[in-house]
């Protein structure tokens, strides 16, 4: 009996010591934390914005040329200017241009880049969040294969969009853009290869990289 008590006590002490030296955490949480610690998407996006993207803007295609090419020969447009990170029917384009503001909406500017400046043919996103990866993909500068996991690749797109809101859209809106004024822009758009056949090319949506009122 005495022996049994001794063993029980020893076992209890052992269990107590073990419980104090071991803790349990969700494996998914630990992995996510490690991944975040090892990679800083905001830093990567900041470097992309300051040091890489400006050079790529030199190759931005003029919006009127691009619209003409979409209508005349989509395959040529894709070959010359389109970029996609993998297999896709949707291609991203880095573009530039200027046009007349037709209207200022809650989260977009409707802009006419043709003459006589009445019908809007592009929409420039000016909302306080930008979804998707148009700028990352149109730049062609971020290679998915260089990342061990695609979540990092996607986080970069999100961080680039945050920079666009803070450094492009907010300062631009502070200048009070209004209908009738001229806006100069650099930006990115994504267009499906069958957009013409599917009649979805009436208005091109642009994520801005630079915006300037004349």
């Amino acid at each position, binding site marked *: 009996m005495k022996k049994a008590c001794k063993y029980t006590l020893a076992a209890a002490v052992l269990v107590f010591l073990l419980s104090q030296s071991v803790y349990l955490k*969700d494996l998914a949480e630990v*992995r996510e934390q490690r991944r975040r610690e090892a990679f800083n998407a905001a830093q990567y996006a900041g470097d992309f914005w300051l040091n890489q993207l400006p050079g790529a803007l030199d190759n931005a295609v003029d919006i009127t040329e691009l619209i003409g090419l979409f209508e005349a020969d989509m395959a040529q447009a894709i070959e010359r200017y389109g970029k996609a990170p*993998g*297999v896709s029917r949707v291609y991203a384009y880095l573009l530039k241009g200027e046009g007349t503001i037709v209207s200022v909406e809650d989260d977009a500017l409707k802009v006419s880049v043709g003459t006589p400046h009445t019908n809007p043919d592009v929409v420039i996103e000016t909302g306080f*969040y930008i*979804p998707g*990866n148009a700028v990352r993909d149109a730049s062609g500068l971020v290679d*998915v294969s260089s990342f061990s996991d*695609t979540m990092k690749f*996607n986080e970069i797109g999100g961080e680039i969009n945050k920079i666009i809101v803070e450094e492009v859209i907010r300062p631009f809106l502070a200048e009070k853009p209004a209908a009738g004024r001229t806006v100069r822009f650099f930006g990115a758009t994504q267009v499906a290869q069958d957009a013409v056949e599917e009649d979805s090319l009436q208005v091109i949506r642009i994520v801005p990289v630079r915006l300037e009122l004349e």
Partner: protein
Amino acid sequence: MPRRSFILTVIFLLMLALGCKQKDDGAGTGAGSQGKRKMAVVISTLNNPWFVVLGDTAKARAEELGYDATIFDSQNDTAKESDHFDNVIAGGYAAILFNPTDADGSIANVKKAKEAGIPTFCIDREINSSDAAVTQILSDNYSGCVELGQYFVKKMNQKGNYVELLGILGDNNTWNRSKGFHSVVDNYPELKRVAQQSAEFDRTKAMEVLESIMQANPEIDAVFCGNDAMAMGAYQALAAAGKADKVKVFGFDGAKDVIDSIRDGKIVATGMQFPKRMARMAAEQADEYIKGKRDFPQKVPVAVELVTQENIAKYTAYGRESEQ
């Protein structure tokens, strides 16, 4: 030495000799029946029709290209997957078309095959490594769910309570889908997520999980599911509770029953992945590798397309009408 010990020693040495197969210089000899080379198709689970299509298509394409192909079911278990890799290595396969069970846990298996000279081609699910597989053909889940999220916001008129059913927590697809969706939806403060829980990509689990969530949160307007199997399970739970007409269900995959359900007006939308396209690509790239090509991009995202009740006519199960 006693006779029994001697026999056991001989058997042990024979097994050791058979196990220590010499490495070859590239893709292995992989000869199967009638001198045909062999491709292994290792699939995370065959308990989901989407993965059955993925595996069957990879096998069929490998056979069209002149290989003997065998499907191995890992049953979402990395230990079983590891056993399959051991068998594939011992069986002298020329290549592995691989749908991993775990982004981190499956890396060791791919490395093991690489060390044995057998190239691995990942399909749909990712491993968190840039130098183990030859290439990884992956659905662009994040972008697909950005588009799905935008449609969700539109259909919900920017407000309402919703439940999110996650897939397997160790799979990158789970988080890429969830993060893509939230990158849009979280910008609308009147859209409130009342519960987020894993149903492990499983139809029955999704039904049980949603039933339990609805006990605590009876007033929900939508369910966003990380795959179509869970969307069907969620729909079943809602139908049993008499809420199927009121609560909007969104899936992700493009599986047959969800495509049919979108057509019937039961499910609102899904993200169409292209399992047949990805499986064919993997088999073709493995064939090219075996024939000497070495220059492959490490990761190839394959775009996901939004399927809704408005554009359902363009789609069929697992793909576009135009590519069937």
